[in-house]
């Protein structure tokens, strides 16, 4: 068994404002491994960012241990930490005139001499980072002239160029479109496996995370940190700790979040895929449950109900609502 890159034991974190002490998370236990993509999930305000801050050495723990590569975080200097750990933060400040190549080269800051001149190794590292993130073609583009998704990849490339064993990303897919979200998460998975890095991603994209993560950390108020393989957390129902309210629960069949009130009493016949989506539409429109049978026909699409035929779902739903 290999050693974990980051270990938290009985870790308690909080802030101090004057005499007021505010505890944020209590007695967390976790281990982060190299070669794995770990996703940290949990609602806003539960202490995810606080935990990240502590790992970055910016917040001394109140209690417990926090070890990075077997060393207590507080004993590591800023540059030692920079050599073991690279980050992509949520801070949106970017100098527009900087090129992607310059941004990625900044990842080498901790390795270069006082002038910051890039040596042979540094240039190779920059090149590798650009090719791993598949943005080599953007090298001379300015940050103000590329898309949000490309910029996020450039930020990941910068972190990669830092050549550290651990990568930490705070919501790297927020504000991105669906394709970019998938692309970036798969990219991170690829990086963790290929480069044998320990990658920790804070995310709210549960469905994408289930598909890509090797390990889940679930953090929520009042419970200890739950960790495990995502699929296992789904089977055991522990994933529902993410959804503590009465309203939603995690649908094990479909692998997605569902309203709890959704019932299966509709009498719909036809192709299973068609049945599923027609039922969803009816539930969303909040039409009353019908006693009669609904038949869904494929090509051309039509819905037959009590002797009537409807060509679109919109017609059918407005008929049911009027009824």
């Amino acid at each position, binding site marked *: 068994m290999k050693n974990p890159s980051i270990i938290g034991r009985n870790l308690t974190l909080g802030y101090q404002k004057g005499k007021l002490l505010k505890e944020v998370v209590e007695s967390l236990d976790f281990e982060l491994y190299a070669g794995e993509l770990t996703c940290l999930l949990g609602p806003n305000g539960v202490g995810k960012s606080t935990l990240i801050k502590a790992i970055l050495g910016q917040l001394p723990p109140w209690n417990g241990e926090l070890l990075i590569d077997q060393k207590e975080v507080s004993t590591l200097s800023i*540059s030692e930490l920079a050599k073991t750990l690279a980050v992509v*933060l949520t801070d949106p400040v970017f*100098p527009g*005139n900087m090129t992607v190549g*310059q941004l990625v080269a900044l990842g080498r*800051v*901790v390795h270069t001499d*006082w002038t910051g*001149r890039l040596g042979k190794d540094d240039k190779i590292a920059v090149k590798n980072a650009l090719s791993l993130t598949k943005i080599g073609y953007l090298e001379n583009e300015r940050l103000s002239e590329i898309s949000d998704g490309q910029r996020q990849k450039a930020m990941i490339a910068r972190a990669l160029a830092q050549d550290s064993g651990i990568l930490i990303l705070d919501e790297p897919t927020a504000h991105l479109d669906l394709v970019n979200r998938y692309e970036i998460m798969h990219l991170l998975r690829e990086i963790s496996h290929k480069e044998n890095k320990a990658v920790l991603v804070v995310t709210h994209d549960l469905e994408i995370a289930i598909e890509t993560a090797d390990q889940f950390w679930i953090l929520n108020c009042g419970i200890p940190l739950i960790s495990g393989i995502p699929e296992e957390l789904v089977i055991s129902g522990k994933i529902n700790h993410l959804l503590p309210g009465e309203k939603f629960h995690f649908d094990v069949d479909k692998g997605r979040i569902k309203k709890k009130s959704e019932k299966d009493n509709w009498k719909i016949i036809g192709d299973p895929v068609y049945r599923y989506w027609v039922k969803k539409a009816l539930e969303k429109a909040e039409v009353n449950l019908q006693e009669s049978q609904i038949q869904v026909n494929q090509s051309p699409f039509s819905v037959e109900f009590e002797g009537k035929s409807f060509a679109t779902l919109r017609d059918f739903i407005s008929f049911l609502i009027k009824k």
Partner: protein
Amino acid sequence: MKKNSSTTYLLVALILLIFSFLINVSLGSVSISIPEIVSGMFSGNWTKSSHEQIILNYRLPKAILAILAGVGLSISGLQMQTFFRNPLAGPFVLGISSGSGLGVAILILASSALGLGMGSGINPWATVIAGTLGAGLVLVIVSLVAWRIKDSMTLLIVGLMFGSAVSAVISVLSYFSGAEALKIFTVWSMGSLGGLVWEQVSVLTFIILLGIIPMVLSIKSYNAMLLGESYARSMGINPTRLRWLMILSTGILAGSITAFCGPIAFIGIAVPHLARMVWKSVDHRILFPASAVLGAILLLICDAIGQIPGSAQTLPINAVTSLIGAPIVISLVLKKNFSKEF
């Protein structure tokens, strides 16, 4: 921009600097041709001995002073803008010029109030020492505050407030002082590159070189700071160390220049932006030399304009830099993608 073309631009700027230096020395109440200056300086052949006197004892020290002040103020401004991530930061945001002003104000105004009657023949060394003491005092107090606060934005606000408070003290002093002393102080506060002798110029040269050292040591850190403090820290840069180096460097540069020449506005704010626009770069390895050379050129030109060639009258340097600097800053702010380019 490719590295080679950046260097080419720098070389062009250096040639421009030499030209503006010669033009600056040649223009004035008596126009002396550039060939005569060159032959006079290298072989000692002056057509008139009065020309030798004017060039060697008056115009050369003044032109060198313009270069020193231009370099120092621009480099201070660039450091402040990058450190505070604020395009409107300048060398005086930490209240250093106000501190210098306070020192000189106390010297001129208080001494006249006490009836010491310094009159118009005030010793230039006296203002320099008073200005240095004032700037140093403010620097020490700002540092004490900086010790306590972690957030750089708070430091910026504290610095600005400090400047206002010190200016208020100067206003109170002015209110109670006589017309003669008030005029001397007002003239000082308009800035002047003239009236200094070689001795003072060489002292300032030494101080400016001293002030540049902390900046040279932190070029890499300033590049990292472009992504903000959190990223800089994650890349192995210690923001607290950088903050002290920044306070030290800008304190020495801006403080000494204000003490020797009086407050000179706008150069420190406008020149770093000009350098970014011309060089289209954010790399401080380019921006520092670029700002230094541009600052020197701009101040030489401003000074030449202020001489009003052919007339015995001169305009105060602060007024000229503001007249040129204000349109530059306004056009920058009006420029559409100004914030993106910063």
